[in-house]
């Protein structure tokens, strides 16, 4: 009899609990990280004594929280991968749009600069056309500055995001450590701390999006978190924090370090995934690489145009000065963490071998090793780093001064600063060196029909380049130079004199004179302007295979391929993550229809239980009535 009532009461209590939990599930249908719960019922122990009751009702054994640790791990993995790729993809898209946009990119501006030079070849004396050349040169420098500046600004943004991400990670690891303590504290409680577990799982998922992690659960319920590829973030109740510090190789940059909560020591880390990994990769693979490559084009342009300018004469009859100035490239510097006093100076010795990479130079106590930044590969180098025997690799020449100590490092950035450091140096239109340095003439008093023509400048550094030389024929087959020597004459054979190659052809006769002299009064001479214009397609990079325009094309293709690959990867990764989340939701998510059905079910059970109590009550009344009579 009491068993009957007990059953009814236990059923009331149990179904109330079930209704409560259904309500809880419905209430949290939109709560992120919430795992649906279910009341676990079990029949009350049956007491098997004769004449006694046959059941004691139902007990609530516990609250089951629907999760699947395997699926959870997949979601954590997926979040890390997705966090990295979406960060990379976002930055890649931005840089891609910068490089390719005809309104922003450098390509069309290079073309316009050379177009202006071509126009000037038609009338080299024209101040207007010269002004257009300088204007286009300035526009080109500005365009490099602008695109380089935007990319550098993306680098700064990445630094800010690094700091913010590190803060978020520290907050989450602290939260997880705290939740660990609270979860371990409930070990002896009858009901599992489902809400805390949900909170911790949510924190772990959020953390995984920021930095790739692996989790291991201790037997006491605490979870240990290791950031990939192997940095301990949370151990039970203790959390190590991340910090951003100035990068010793580039003080303008931040790097991420792990600070041990126990010893307080700090060491740099290189997380491979998550948003943090994505940010670090974006800076190296996207920002640095784009600046290096764009800088290579800018550097090649400035170097080539300046060299061409130095080979010609301007309107004042002087050798041309620099058209572009370059600051910040090539650059090399010791790490701030170095112990020794070594410093390093870098020059570009071979433009054609320049790769558009940056390097880290390591001193091991006896020699140097150069690591390419893009892939960490060791680059073959020769030399010992002295002035007489510089370190030479990839078109660079490095001289180390001071005394480095083993383990000292140096940053070598041949072209990174070039896009932002290129400026127009020439402001005077007269300063454009469009004329060749030397002109040739045949004397009007000549009797023979010999003619002279200058082919090219073979050595612009020849000290006598601008000296006047007279070639006088002794007879039809021999000539002397400046009144000395006897040289055999062959019509059309190239002759080199004072850095100038020229040919005399035809039939000169004795006494005929030809003169080479400084081409100082020839505003209409466009020979050097033609050479300027020819630099557009000249193979000056990649060992002579690429010109300026082509080298910019490479950057665009590179960026396009990278962006496209990242888009494909992020799509695949998102699909994986989506599948994992769906699977997780299939286990843990609240289905309102299901809860509605449960509501009906438990409502009916509750009604039935109340009936049990009512019947028990009426049975009791009848029993009492019978006894009273």
């Amino acid at each position, binding site marked *: 009899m009491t068993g009957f009532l007990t059953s009814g009461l236990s059923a009331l209590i149990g179904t109330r609990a079930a209704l409560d939990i259904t309500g809880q599930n419905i209430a949290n249908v939109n709560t992120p990280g919430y795992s649906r719960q279910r009341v676990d019922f079990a029949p009350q122990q049956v007491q098997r004594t004769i004449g006694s009751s046959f059941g004691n009702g139902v007990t609530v054994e516990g609250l089951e929280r629907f999760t699947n640790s395997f699926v959870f791990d997949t979601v954590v993995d997926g979040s890390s991968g997705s966090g990295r790729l979406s960060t990379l993809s976002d930055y890649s898209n931005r840089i*891609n749009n910068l490089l390719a946009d005809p309104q922003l990119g450098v390509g069309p501006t290079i073309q316009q600069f050379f*177009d202006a030079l071509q126009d000037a070849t038609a*009338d080299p004396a024209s101040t207007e056309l010269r002004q257009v050349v300088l204007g286009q040169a300035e526009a080109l420098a500005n365009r490099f500055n602008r695109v380089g500046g935007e990319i550098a600004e993306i680098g700064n943004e990445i630094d800010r995001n690094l700091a913010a991400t590190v803060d978020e990670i520290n907050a989450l690891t602290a939260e997880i450590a705290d939740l660990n303590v609270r979860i371990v504290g409930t070990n002896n409680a009858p009901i599992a701390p489902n809400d805390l577990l949900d909170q911790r799982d949510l924190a772990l998922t959020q953390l995984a999006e920021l930095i790739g992690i692996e989790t291991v659960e201790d037997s006491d319920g605490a979870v240990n978190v290791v950031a990939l590829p192997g940095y301990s973030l949370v151990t039970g109740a203790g959390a190590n924090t991340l910090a951003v510090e100035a990068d010793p190789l580039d003080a303008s940059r931040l790097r991420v370090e792990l600070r041990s909560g126990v010893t307080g020591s700090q060491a740099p880390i290189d997380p491979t995934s998550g948003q943090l990994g994505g940010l670090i990769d974006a800076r190296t693979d996207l920002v640095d690489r784009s600046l290096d490559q764009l800088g290579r084009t800018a550097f090649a342009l400035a170097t080539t145009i300046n060299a061409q300018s130095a080979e010609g004469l301007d309107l004042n009859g002087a050798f041309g000065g620099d058209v572009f100035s370059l600051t910040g490239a090539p650059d090399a510097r010791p790490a701030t963490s170095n112990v020794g006093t070594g410093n390093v100076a870098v020059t570009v010795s071979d433009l054609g071998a320049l790769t558009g990479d940056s390097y880290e130079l390591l001193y091991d106590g006896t020699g140097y090793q150069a690591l390419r930044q893009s892939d960490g590969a060791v680059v073959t180098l020769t030399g010992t780093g002295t002035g007489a025997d510089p370190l030479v690799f990839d078109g660079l020449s490095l001289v180390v001064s001071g005394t480095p100590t083993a383990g000292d490092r140096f940053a070598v950035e041949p072209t990174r600063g070039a896009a932002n450091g290129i400026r127009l140096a020439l402001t005077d239109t007269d300063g454009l060196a469009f004329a060749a340095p030397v002109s040739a003439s045949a004397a009007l008093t000549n009797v023979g029909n010999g003619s002279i023509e200058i082919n090219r400048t073979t050595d612009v550094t020849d000290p006598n380049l601008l000296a006047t030389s007279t070639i006088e024929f002794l007879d039809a087959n021999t000539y002397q130079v400046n009144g000395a020597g006897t040289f055999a004459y062959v019509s059309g054979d190239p002759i080199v004199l004072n850095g100038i190659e020229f040919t005399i052809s035809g039939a000169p006769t004795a006494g005929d004179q030809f003169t080479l002299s400084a081409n100082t009064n*020839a505003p209409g001479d466009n020979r050097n302007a033609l050479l300027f214009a020819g630099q557009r397609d000249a193979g000056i990079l990649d060992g002579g295979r690429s010109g300026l325009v082509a080298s910019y094309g490479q950057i665009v*293709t590179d960026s396009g391929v990278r962006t496209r690959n990242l888009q494909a990867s992020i799509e695949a990764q998102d699909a994986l993550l989506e599948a994992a*989340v769906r699977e997780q939701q299939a286990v843990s*998510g609240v*289905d309102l229809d299901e809860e509605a059905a449960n509501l009906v079910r438990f409502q009916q059970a509750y009604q039935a239980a109340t009936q049990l109590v009512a019947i028990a009550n009426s049975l009791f009344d009848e029993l009492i009535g019978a006894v009273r009579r």
Partner: protein
Amino acid sequence: MTRVPTLDTFNRALAQLTASAAAAARAQEQIATGSRIVTPADDPYGAAEVLLFEQNLAELAQYSRNATNAEVRLQREEAALASVNDLLQRSRELVLQASNATQTQETRGFIAVELREIRAQLVDIANTENGRGRYLFAGNRDTEVPFVASGAAVDYVGDQGQRQIQIGESLFVESGDSGDQIFMRVPRANGVFTTAAANANTGTGIVARQSVITAGVYGGESLTVRFTAADAYDIVDGVGAVVASGTFAPGDAIATNGIAVEIDGQPAIGDEFTIAAAGYRDVFATLDDIATVLESGASSDAALAQQASALNRGLENLDQAIGIVLETRTSVGSRLESIDAQRDLNTGFELLGREALADLRDLDYTAAISQLSQQLTALEAAQQAFVRTQGLSLFNVL
């Protein structure tokens, strides 16, 4: 049976809606830009090719502009040279006219006046500008007047430079010719040697035709034909040694050292005719020479004979000048032709480039529009499905 949690249903439907909307937006952007490749990531290799073709087209456009620049300049030069030719032809007629025995001192004076007038016009033409302050015939010193009067002579202060303009991938064309080449460096006489009658001659010998018999034998040495009798001569070299002798009758050609000089009229004993290497004589000097001879007022037979010799030389010099102008005009004409040919070639390349570019970049509108409408249909369907499925809930019927 897989459970379908409510939030997941919602999120999934939302993701599908977003994806459909994004696809439709992309198709719309393609249609709006008319380009298949909106960013390089859409087709990296295609984008690089597009970049190259665009550069190539820009290059071709530049070559066309260069070609036009060169063409304009050469056409101006051709017009100037046509006038030069006319003036030189007129001078030639005048010299022939002056050589006519019916001329008097006075009429020769008139001719001299006209020749001086022509010479002044020639200087003007030689100093032609291109309309923008650049002198056509100044070589590379084209900002300054190239031909300046210096006493009776005209000096050339330009240089011998000749400017080239790039009109094709590897084709350069000279956009002009220096004044030195056209006006100054005019070979004298027949270009090999020239013979002058000595001022002191008393006979009526006239140097008529001069010719090279065997090319390459005469080496520029000075020779003098000295008449030892009315019908005999010696040929004396530069140091006074007699190298040959011969007999002479009026109209005979005296041949030596691979060259021949025909002398008309009757030289007197002791008359000398000097032979020298031709060298060059500028066209202004030639005209000045002729005018001066005509103004000399020759009346004696001997003086008239010398005048006739000088007029013969002048005529030869003029013919050389006319020859050079003709040669230059031919060269200008062929340069204009090659500009035309290159322009045709460039246009052909441009057409090919544009076609290739269109293939690479341009959108197939039919396909794109049908794709857009497909995507819009998908979007609408997704929206309707969303509304329908979100409306389904057991709670609605409780």
